[in-house]
């Protein structure tokens, strides 16, 4: 089944109401599927936990897949100022503690690749392998990403969520997907996107994402194996930069997905999961 067929089955409903208290006044919404070695999904600010389901179904057949909403996003507690990346990382560790998960693979996409990188740096004992899909930090920094997010923020403030969607859509999603699902897809998913988040959540998230400096030097400190997955139609990072980025990790490599965009599993969920499974199997075999 193509990624676009998966997209057509996208179900953004919250089916469960499971929460774990991770610090004073903060409960995180989470959902788990499957049994086995844990995989934890880290949300980009635009994609709350339900949006991962149709893109991780095969993995849930043989892994314990955990999704959750970051503090101040989705169904998790909203507590005023956007948490720092350090707080988001501490929240994740507390969530793992609450779920009695000793160590987990991480899959991150777009802005959440910052969080995955930081958790792998600060808590290597809790991390097995790290998948960075569409990283927002490049081999020379992340000035381009900050410029993009500043432009998105301006659009959000002046034209609301629908305007932001129209700004982001041709950048984030591949030309292949744009042609495949056409205008009905563009309009229909605008409705879904508009229901996912509030303006405040997105403003806070974009501002937080822009605060990371994306220093490439820190990647040398990531001890855990890292896989950079980039679509060759990713507007932020091309295949050459992806390979250069992967080479900065002590145990990093890159996989390039043909015709995929910034969120490559949207274009080819089965292909993405096959790449991820192979990587995780290699990591677990070496452990």
């Amino acid at each position, binding site marked *: 089944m193509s990624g676009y067929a998966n997209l057509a089955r996208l*179900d953004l409903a919250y089916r469960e109401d499971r929460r774990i208290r991770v610090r004073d006044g903060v409960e995180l919404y989470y959902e788990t599927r499957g049994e086995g070695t844990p995989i934890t999904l880290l949300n980009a600010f635009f994609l709350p936990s339900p949006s991962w389901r149709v893109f991780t179904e095969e993995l849930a057949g043989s892994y314990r897949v955990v999704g959750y909403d970051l503090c101040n996003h989705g169904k998790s507690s909203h507590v005023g100022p956007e948490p720092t990346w350090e707080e988001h990382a501490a929240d994740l560790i507390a969530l793992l503690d609450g779920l009695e998960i000793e160590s987990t693979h991480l899959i991150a996409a777009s802005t959440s690749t910052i969080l995955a990188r930081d958790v792998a740096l600060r808590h290597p004992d809790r991390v097995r392998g790290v998948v960075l899909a569409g990283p927002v930090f490049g081999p020379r920094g992340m000035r381009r990403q900050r410029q993009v997010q500043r432009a998105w923020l301006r659009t959000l403030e002046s034209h609301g969520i629908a305007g932001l969607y129209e700004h982001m859509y041709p950048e984030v999603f591949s030309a292949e997907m744009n042609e495949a699902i056409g*205008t*009905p*897809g563009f309009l229909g*998913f605008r*409705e879904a996107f508009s229901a996912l988040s509030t303006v405040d959540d997105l403003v806070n998230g974009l501002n937080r994402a822009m605060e990371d400096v994306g220093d490439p030097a820190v990647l040398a400190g990531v001890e855990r194996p890292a896989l950079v997955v980039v679509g060759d139609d990713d507007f932020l990072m091309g295949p050459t930069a992806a390979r250069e980025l992967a080479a900065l990790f002590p145990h990093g490599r890159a996989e390039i997905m043909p015709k995929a965009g910034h969120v490559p599993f949207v274009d080819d969920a089965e292909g993405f999961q096959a790449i991820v499974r192979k990587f995780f199997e290699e990591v677990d075999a070496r452990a």
Partner: protein
Amino acid sequence: MPDSEAAVRKRIRGLLAQLYGGDSFVETVSDGISLRQAGVSSHALVALLVAMEDEFGFEWDDDVRPEALRSIESLAGHVLSLQE
């Protein structure tokens, strides 16, 4: 002669009934209620938009405002505006 608004709404209801395999769900959706709040998934909405192109003989434009997609009533209003 342009369709009446009631007729267009009825035809949109018919398309929704086809998508949901019967009238039971559609009967719970009033003309003015938000389709999203009524429980119409993003997949179903995309399918409805595609079906409307065939049913009414037009193609959606990317610049259609979100308000036009909110309900059976607003969808019918969009169809009628194209027929004027």
